């Protein structure tokens, strides 16, 4: 399995950043950056990373199962993450979540039939002073109104 030249370059430089013999430290960064290209933690990806780091697939599975951002299945082209934790809740983040679910007809960690959008109700994303907040893939959107959310979803659907 090969990745883009940029990612291969990143991987090539990564090992030197950790002490000799402790290259397992690359595991989480490798999986996260590779996920950006592959989409989710495929068996092929897990095996490839295990092979490159000379660890067992079991060690990869232990880690993949633990971290929330490591996707166990294919998600939408755009992954919409809506925070409903306490600071966002106080600014009706829960209602944004309900609204997105109803509008898209999907729930937590589900994908629209066309594969364009997936939804995730996330825990605090560190945007508490700009609540309610959402993340569109890695991009933050602050002070999100129901109308802005509607428009975002419509734009993504029509994209």
């Amino acid at each position, binding site marked *: 399995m090969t990745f883009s030249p940029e990612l291969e370059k990143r991987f090539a430089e990564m090992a030197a950043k950790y002490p000799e013999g402790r290259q397992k430290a690359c595991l989480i960064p490798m999986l996260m950056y590779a996920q950006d290209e592959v989409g989710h933690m495929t068996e092929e990806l897990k095996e490839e990373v295990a092979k490159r780091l000379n660890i067992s697939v079991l060690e990869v599975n232990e880690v993949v199962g*633990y971290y929330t951002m490591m996707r166990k299945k294919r998600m939408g082209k755009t992954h919409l993450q809506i925070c409903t934790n306490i600071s966002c809740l106080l600014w009706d983040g829960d209602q944004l979540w309900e609204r997105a679910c109803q509008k898209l007809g999907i729930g937590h960690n589900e994908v629209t039939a066309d594969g364009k959008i997936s939804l995730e109700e996330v825990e605090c994303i560190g945007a508490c002073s700009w609540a309610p907040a959402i993340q569109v893939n890695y991009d933050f959107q602050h002070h999100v109104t129901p109308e802005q959310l509607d428009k975002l979803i419509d734009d993504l659907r029509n994209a």
Partner: protein
Amino acid sequence: MADPVTFTVNGKSLQAPAGTLVIDACKRAGIEIPAFCYYEGLALQAACRMCLVEVEKAPKLLASCTLPVAEGMVVQTESPVVVQARKAMLEFLLTNHPLDCPVCDKGGECELQDMSFRYGAGESRFTEMKQHVDEKQWSPVVYFDAPRCILCYRCVRICDEGLGVKALGVTNRGVYSEITPNKGDHLDCDECGACIDICPVGALTSGIYRYQTRPWEMEHIGAICSHCGDGCKTTLGVKNDEILRGNNRDRSGINGEFLCIKGRYAFDFVSHAERLQSPMIRVDGKLEEVSWSKALAFVAQRFGEIKAAGGRFGVIGGERSTNEENYYLQKFARVGLGTPHIDHRRSGDVPALLDALHGRQGALATVDDLYNAKGVLIIGADLAQQHPLLAFQTRADSRHHQAKVFTVTEGPVREDKVAAKKLRAGPAGQLAVVKTLGEDLKAAGELVVLFGDSIQGAAVGELVSFIDSLGVPAKYICLVDYSNSRGTCDMGLLPHLGPGYQAAAQTGMGQAEMLADPALDALWVVGANPLAGAALASQQAFVVVQDMFLTETAQRADVVLPSASAYEKTGTVTNTCGQVQRLRKAISVMGVKADLDIFGLLARGMRLDLGRAVPDQVFEEIRASVHGYNVPLPVIATGGAAMTDPVHGRIPVAGQAQVIQSARDTLFTSGSLTRYSKTLNLVLEAPGELYKP
């Protein structure tokens, strides 16, 4: 030992070496602190929080499993707050634990049941739904029921630290955390079942044993595993003359709780459908079942005739027969039949080692010595495959005592993982490679040297001289294949050596020569299968075979006498280290006889006076006459292992044509017995990547 520390538990002043954990110190003083995740010998976890204790001046309860004793420390293990905390932990644990005790295989032996009984609350306040996950089968042997799992991580640790396999891990997070096998949905491992036995609850269950009985309905009989030469004690669970399981949870025996797949499950050959349960005599070229009296009379008559005619007997003994049987057999051959042609299949050059060590005391290592050695040198053996207990001890030695391990083998072995140096060489080159390790071995300060069949004949003496030249104390283990390969040697089933390695009055033919001798008149094979890979040259030879199964050799026999397995008789066996242990009869199988009984009946039939063929009496004779076997009886009578010390003077070894070759069994094979173990075959049919036979 570190300076002792004085501290107080429940008002009682105690002492323990500095660094001792509170939970251990209390245990030694007879104060029980309950725990699930804490497990002696394995890495600390502090996960189950059952062992919380109150420590004066500490702001909160502390986990006694990670707390070293300190001078002046004041500990309470039964104060109201500690008692309440334990009750609360159990309440939390039981929230998601299916209370399916009535149908759970662990019922009666479950630590969670016991803890709830002793420390838990009588009622439950949990009224919510429980999480459910379906049960999974991970291998022919291992089943996993996730909801029952309390996540003590014992299985993960025993597999990684103990077995060096690391086939189990943890996936998911929080309340959804789950033990997971290395292949996603199944296991690729040693199938040793250690994870099942160590599981405190019914989360891991054995495909071999589950749902057959309640544990209290079984009798538990300590037997010695009849497979490899390590001599593990396996406690057999027996109900109605049927062995339902093998384990060693009480940590008795030289192996503690360790067992490999063979010790734990491969007792099942005893009930194989092809087990012989009636004597057979060849009539018109076909073996036909006859009565014992008829078969024995026929053999006695034919042996008598051949003896009277001055015929040539060949006698081949078995590596799983008891010392008593082997001793009696060689006596039968030498004295009763008057033949010097006695041998067995040899897998390690024990006589050469004993000769090289002549005049020394305590130069042979026990299983325990291996665990405590500062340095371990492994030559020409794949311990993890052929000697799983010795491999387990080596890993434990490395883990607990930071032992320096050196491997000199043909290919990679699992012990490489804990090795300070791993060197590769073919059998012929291994001694030369060992000699390059001089400085490393010297630095280790103390050695246990294990060697297989690559070091034999003059090379054994050369090895011992080389180790001597390093000036560090060393003990040796000559590796041999099966449960009594060592004892068979010690009892003199050799063409040139009698019991205790005394020169035989007359040197006879070895096994290969007997088979190749066209003039052989009779061949008597007991518990061996020499014709599996060789032909019998003599056409006229009268062949008598004592075996459990119709092996290749038995198929050539004129008379086949069905014999008892190691689990169906008493007697002693000697492991590869030279430790002698007693077999206890666990079950009776209809129609078979112990080999010793057969010998006695044949002797009587031939009117030979060879002494009574009763195990205890024969063993007395062995103790009196075989050098190094004068072991203390109480030790073996109570299930212990007594070290024999057969080293004395020079042993006449020169000039012998020797065939010494290990069968190179894997974890999943056991010579001719392999094919009769359903469990081994189940696993062999689904071969893993770790170890392909």
